[in-house]
């Protein structure tokens, strides 16, 4: 079955463009299996965890790529490794805890034991007991190492790839995306907290949502309801050449004078619609560039968020055709003083499962999923801002959503679509 699927190009599209997207892509079990082969195990770099989650030599952290369980390790020499969290003997899960310290990794089932590099080191009763049993003489441990991945660290983010064909990480990201990751993660990280938002929808509906700058001010009405000034902002979208990675940003427009700003900053006359404690939004320009919002995605499943001083990494992990887990890691930096930590904790109310400007994203994918149940016809329309997937100097566009499908179709079908 898998072979047949892997040879196919998946569900057929209405045209060679990416501006109409068949709904079957979010519901079809075969398509989902095909994605595991061609996207998650294809020439992609999948976000695994933060460098800061492996603080010392001899530590490990579990993660996932698609539904495949992964272990990331930092060996005694400080080098990073990643491999499938599955014993090479009988396939049992190796690491059961989410993270830890270990000199070696031993399977609980039959005590096969591996180094943090993923090499098989010992097999219990390899020579049998009392000269009986044991493995055949020709058994070669070096042929039974764990299934290793390529692993790379970029600006504190650790990525893994199953494929030898995944390009160098800088080339994969593209220069503009790489530069904007470095911009945010420019100093040693301090983790403030983690949680997981369970999304009852296909994983692609979430990554599309994260790339969709069109919906932001429409679905998320917190800023507009409380008349928090946004008018002196300018912004745009950057899409990398592959289409898969993007940045959406907005920044203070320095060409608007203070007077203009004040004029626009007139608040609602209704006191009810003001924040009782506006210190929530008491932010500082920590990067010194006036960028107040930067949402960045790396294909297939990473979102890096800077909303004022609320910084977070989101990992999108499918758990089934119609189920996804969104792992949130909220971060600050080691050089944050007490006031900065408090500012980040306050502004963390903006994002996450209870985020003032993000909680809706946990539900809206499910609204689509429910509405397309039982349909094999119809497509979604992704025409805002044109039919291609290039960078655009405005945010009322779906260009980066088309970028996602450009990369997706390239991987699934083996040729670049008309985008």
């Amino acid at each position, binding site marked *: 079955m898998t072979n047949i699927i892997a040879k196919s190009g998946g569900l057929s599209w209405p045209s060679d463009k990416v501006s109409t997207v068949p709904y079957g892509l979010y519901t079809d079990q075969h398509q989902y299996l095909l994605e595991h082969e061609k996207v998650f195990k294809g020439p992609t770099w999948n976000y695994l965890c933060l460098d800061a989650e492996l603080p010392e030599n001899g530590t490990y952290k579990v993660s996932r790529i698609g539904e495949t369980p992964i272990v990331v390790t930092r060996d005694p020499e400080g080098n990073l490794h990643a491999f499938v969290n599955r014993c090479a003997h009988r396939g049992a899960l190796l690491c059961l805890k*989410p993270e830890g310290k270990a000199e070696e990794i031993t399977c609980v089932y039959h005590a096969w034991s591996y180094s943090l590099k993923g090499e098989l080191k010992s097999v219990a009763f390899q020579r049998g007991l009392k000269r009986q049993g044991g493995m055949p003489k020709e058994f070669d441990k070096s042929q039974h190492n764990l299934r290793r991945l390529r692993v790379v660290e970029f600006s504190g983010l650790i990525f893994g790839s199953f494929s030898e064909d995944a390009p160098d990480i800088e080339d994969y990201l593209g220069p503009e995306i790489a530069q904007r990751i470095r911009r945010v993660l420019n100093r040693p990280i301090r*983790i*403030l*907290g*983690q*949680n*997981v*938002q*369970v*999304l*009852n929808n296909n994983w692609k509906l979430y990554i599309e949502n994260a790339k969709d700058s069109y919906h932001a001010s429409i*679905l998320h*009405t*917190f800023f507009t*309801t*409380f008349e928090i000034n946004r008018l002196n902002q300018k912004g745009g979208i950057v899409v990398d050449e592959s289409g898969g990675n993007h940045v959406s940003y907005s920044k203070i427009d320095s060409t608007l004078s203070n007077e203009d700003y004040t004029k626009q900053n007139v608040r609602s006359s209704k006191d*009810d*619609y003001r*924040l*009782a*404690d506006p*210190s*929530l939004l008491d932010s500082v320009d920590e990067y010194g560039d006036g960028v107040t919002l930067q949402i960045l995605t790396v294909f297939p499943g990473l979102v890096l968020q800077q909303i004022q001083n609320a910084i977070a990494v989101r990992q999108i992990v499918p758990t089934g055709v119609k189920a996804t*887990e969104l792992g949130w890691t*909220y971060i600050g930096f080691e050089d944050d003083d007490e006031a900065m*930590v*408090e500012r980040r*904790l*306050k502004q*963390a*109310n903006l994002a*996450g*499962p*209870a985020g*003032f400007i993000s*909680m*809706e994203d*946990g*539900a809206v994918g*499910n609204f689509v999923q429910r509405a397309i149940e039982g349909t094999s016809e119809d497509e979604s329309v992704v025409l805002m801002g044109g039919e291609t997937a290039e960078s655009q100097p405005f945010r009322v566009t779906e260009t980066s959503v088309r970028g996602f499908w450009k990369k997706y179709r390239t991987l699934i079908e083996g040729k670049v679509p008309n985008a």
Partner: protein
Amino acid sequence: MNQTQRERIEALYADYAAAIDEGRLEEWPAFFKEHCLYRITNRRDFDRGLKHGAMWANSLGMLKDRISALREANIYEDHTYRHITSAFRVLESNEQEAWVNANFLVIRTMQNGDMSLFAAGTYQDHIVFEGNDTCLAERIVICDSQKLDTLLAIPL
């Protein structure tokens, strides 16, 4: 701790749960002191000493803003909670205040009738007795699970 104080704590817990479960969310901030801490975290973060909260407020104003946001700004499908709060343990107390832990269970019911176990965990409270008022100086909601289904709009 005297019996009156125990009764006041019990009444605080029952009134807090009833206000949320009956949709009287505007009454929720009044269970806290002006300078307070309300934080929803999970066991894993809490045990690691991490300070983040899915909801995090250190003033009455921030609590009020939570409610006005969910009434006026945030979009979600209607749903209700049923809190089961039980087995409170007084860890320390004097005439003015008490440090109390209690178990909670929150069942979420969606408008189509779907019910699910939404959250379970421990309230870690600092309670203050002021005149006839009994209120929370601090409530840390420690959920047993780090997973939250769909979204968290209504406070726990």
